[in-house]
């Protein structure tokens, strides 16, 4: 016993020598401050908050130490929290927990993973309280700090309610939910013992939450504004959930992304026109005979493959331990292999790994040298222990280095949801990406694997980077995203594309935008070029659906006002007026396109009916508030009848998914 005491003493005595350069810098700084202080200009210099730059020998320990405050002088209020702590850590000690330690590979946050700083047993917790009562005199600051420590644990049981909060809060939820768990383990769990394939860990997925758009009354609120969305991640997440035999969580269903997943044959703009063209059709709403469905389709200019600009791609690949599963890193490697043959000899590829085999895996390499690229891909391995903390910055640096005039640079971030890319604060990360976007490097996000997928963050990052967020669950999906739609995913043709529809109250009494909840914009943002919106890539198509109700229809949801109902002053036959704003890539001022929306007698084409079926599918998954008696059977029949040519089989797959969802929703 005394040996350990001596060992501790000897260990502490062996402090490493101070770094001479740092010493010199510190002394110089001190002298400067001294001079300033004695000139009377700077009376009380305060320590500058310097964040450690290099993860040193004890990086983890450092954070562990610094997260906890030194003197747990808990005031009366906080000792309550500490008692809770004691209770919570005792509870999980059951025989089952001890015999089958829970795998923590996916979720255990570092500071809590080693049980030491958190009292591991009730005894220790009590000992802490004793220490607390012992040391009564201290500063208010220490109490503040102690509150911080105390709060962590009681927050855990309430965490589920926090899922409803904003995107960033999802992060907090993830960290705190698992706090009590690691403290069960008597010793730090060696990572080698953990089988990352087993995922008994609780779900750490985060999805954005948004209420479905309500029915709006045209007389009160005639203008509807939103940003385009070419992401398709939601559909793939829904598919992956259904394939696992579960209905997807509400937040994962974004109807616009499901509708936009499918290719439609909209007329493409002619050479010399605006980069995209809109086509509008009006058809009876399948689920409500009293209303009409207005479909707005935007088709981006189809890529002229031959004269596309040279492409610089930086793959930023998450190689953290959690990426080991077959549906993560291995699938990612296969996906990137599919992409390579699509590139042209003069295109350049670089690979950066983060949280793993650290840093640059492949320096910028021309695509013709595919052997070197494939070789580098093969070398990627999950589970490195060095945190490549500057992954994102490094990736952007490389992209900038590779970029030449007229070329397109894009960072492709591939991850399972751990965005440990080096910029630690969420707002900072978003701003960083937006800044780089302004400088001409775009970002797309590819999500892999389930269980930890941070859909909300993926979406936010891709939005900030003017890229698309796709979720890749199968090799077919990888093919769709990276091969069939390569040009759209990688070559932007219009930035900040905003849609504004003004409805004519004489023709449309009520309207409802289906989907785009997370993309809504304020009316005045439409003309504000500073407000960011979605991007359209070469060949991309975007579809938006409105359900509109004519005045006097029996299907009106709102009764007319008795007082002050303004009579529409126009007899225009137009249903509404469509305004589009977009910026050419790299420009700062937007261009405007205006088209009236008119009702037509032409029967709805297959594309419109299929889009309606998918919109119905999405609504059935999220509560079907506006669908009446229209159910799965109708959605399936409609989709079935509108499959068309379906060269890639996407629509057939959707019908099968609807059938699956139908069976699951009966249970």
């Amino acid at each position, binding site marked *: 016993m005394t040996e350990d005491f001596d060992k501790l003493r000897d260990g502490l005595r062996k402090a490493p020598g101070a770094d001479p350069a740092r010493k010199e810098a510190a002394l110089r700084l001190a002298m400067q401050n001294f001079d300033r202080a004695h000139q009377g200009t700077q009376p009380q210099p305060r320590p500058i908050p310097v964040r450690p730059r*290099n993860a040193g020998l004890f990086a983890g320990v450092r954070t562990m130490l610094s997260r906890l405050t030194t003197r747990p002088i808990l005031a009366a209020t906080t000792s309550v929290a500490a008692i809770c702590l004691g209770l919570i850590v005792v509870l999980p000690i059951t025989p089952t927990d001890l015999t089958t330690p829970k795998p923590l590979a996916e979720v255990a946050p570092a500071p809590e993973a080693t049980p030491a700083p958190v009292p591991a047993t009730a005894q220790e917790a009590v000992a802490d309280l004793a220490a607390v009562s012992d040391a009564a005199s201290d500063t208010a600051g220490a109490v503040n700090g102690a509150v911080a420590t105390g709060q962590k644990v009681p927050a855990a049981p309430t965490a589920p309610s926090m899922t409803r909060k904003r995107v960033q809060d999802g992060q907090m939820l993830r960290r705190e939910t698992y706090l009590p768990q690691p403290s069960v383990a008597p010793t730090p769990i060696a990572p080698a013992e953990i089988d990352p394939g087993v995922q008994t860990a609780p779900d750490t997925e985060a999805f954005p939450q948004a209420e479905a758009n309500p029915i709006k009354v045209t007389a009160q609120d005639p203008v509807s504004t939103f940003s385009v969305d070419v992401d398709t991640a939601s559909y793939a997440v829904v598919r992956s959930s259904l394939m696992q035999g579960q209905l997807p969580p509400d937040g994962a269903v974004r109807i616009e992304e499901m509708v936009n997943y499918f290719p439609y044959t909209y007329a493409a703009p002619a050479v010399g026109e605006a980069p995209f063209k809109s086509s509008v059709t009006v058809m009876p709403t399948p689920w409500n005979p009293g209303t009409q469905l207005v479909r707005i389709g935007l088709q981006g200019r189809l890529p002229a493959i031959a004269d596309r600009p040279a492409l610089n791609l930086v793959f930023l690949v998450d190689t953290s331990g959690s990426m080991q599963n077959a549906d993560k890193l291995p699938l990612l490697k296969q996906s990137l292999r599919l992409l390579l043959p699509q590139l042209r000899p003069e295109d350049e590829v670089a690979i950066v790994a983060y949280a793993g085999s650290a840093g640059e895996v492949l320096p910028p390499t021309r695509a013709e040298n595919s052997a070197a690229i494939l070789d580098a891909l093969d070398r990627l391995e999950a589970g490195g222990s060095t945190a490549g903390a500057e992954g994102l910055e490094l990736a952007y640096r490389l992209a900038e280095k590779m970029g030449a005039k007229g070329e397109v640079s894009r960072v492709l971030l591939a991850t399972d949801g751990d965005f440990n890319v080096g910029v630690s604060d969420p707002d900072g990360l978003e701003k960083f990406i937006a800044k780089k976007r302004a400088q001409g490097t775009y970002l797309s996000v590819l999500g892999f694997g389930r269980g930890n997928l941070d859909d909300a963050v993926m979406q936010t990052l891709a939005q900030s980077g003017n890229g698309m967020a796709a979720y890749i669950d199968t090799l077919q999906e990888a093919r769709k995203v990276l091969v069939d739609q390569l040009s759209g995913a990688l070559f932007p043709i219009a930035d900040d594309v905003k849609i504004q529809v003004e409805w004519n109250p004489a023709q449309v009494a009520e309207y409802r935008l289906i989907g785009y909840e997370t993309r809504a914009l304020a009316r005045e943002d439409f003309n504000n070029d500073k407000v960011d919106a979605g991007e359209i890539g070469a060949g991309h198509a975007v579809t938006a659906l409105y359900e509109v109700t004519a005045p006097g229809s029996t299907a009106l949801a709102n009764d007319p006002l008795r007082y002050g109902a303004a009579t529409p002053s126009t007899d225009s036959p137009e249903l509404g007026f469509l305004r589009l704003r977009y910026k050419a890539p790299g420009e700062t001022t937007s261009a405007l396109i205006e088209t009236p929306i008119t009702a037509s007698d032409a029967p709805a084409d297959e594309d419109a009916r299929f889009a309606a079926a998918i919109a119905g599918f999405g609504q059935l998954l999220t509560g079907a508030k506006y669908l009446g008696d229209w159910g799965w059977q109708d959605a399936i029949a409609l989709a079935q009848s509108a499959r068309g040519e379906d060269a890639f089989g996407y629509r057939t797959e959707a019908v099968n998914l609807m059938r699956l969802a139908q069976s699951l929703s009966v249970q």
Partner: protein
Amino acid sequence: MLMETPDETLALAAASGDRSAFAQLLARHYDRVFGLCWRLTGSRADAEDLTQDICAALPGKLHSFRAEARFSTWLYRVAVNAAHDRRRRAATHARAALGWGEWEVNRQAAMAEAEDAQDWLVAAMTRLPPELRDTVALTLGEDLTQAEAAAILGLSEGTIAWRMAEVKKHLRKQAAEEARI
């Protein structure tokens, strides 16, 4: 060889604007402050940063030095308080920036560290509650008496003695746990 000017004299001179006294004082104590910072933080990088913070703030703080205490005791107190401030800031920062994957970075780093069996010291230190860690850093690491440590931490000597007993208890328990595995 000339006799060394006592710290306290230098400190008072520095406080009243003597530049060379201040420089001498800093040069004399930098390494020791760095050593203490390392013991308090457990990380070299952090210790470098913390020492720099302390150096930067020292000219302003010197006014509060009274000749009643030994300069080294006073300097230790400044260092311990700066370390507390820093931890508190880090805790606030960690809460404010429950950042994307920050914990993942830390987890990876911690995993790497845990693997290093030679890091017995790290394991032992991190398992001690923070206030015991500070006490240990001062008494065992800096070889101060319990009275001196008590003066620095602003506690009674009895508390320090009690804490050292606690440290022994903790170490015994750790050893027992290790033996069990």
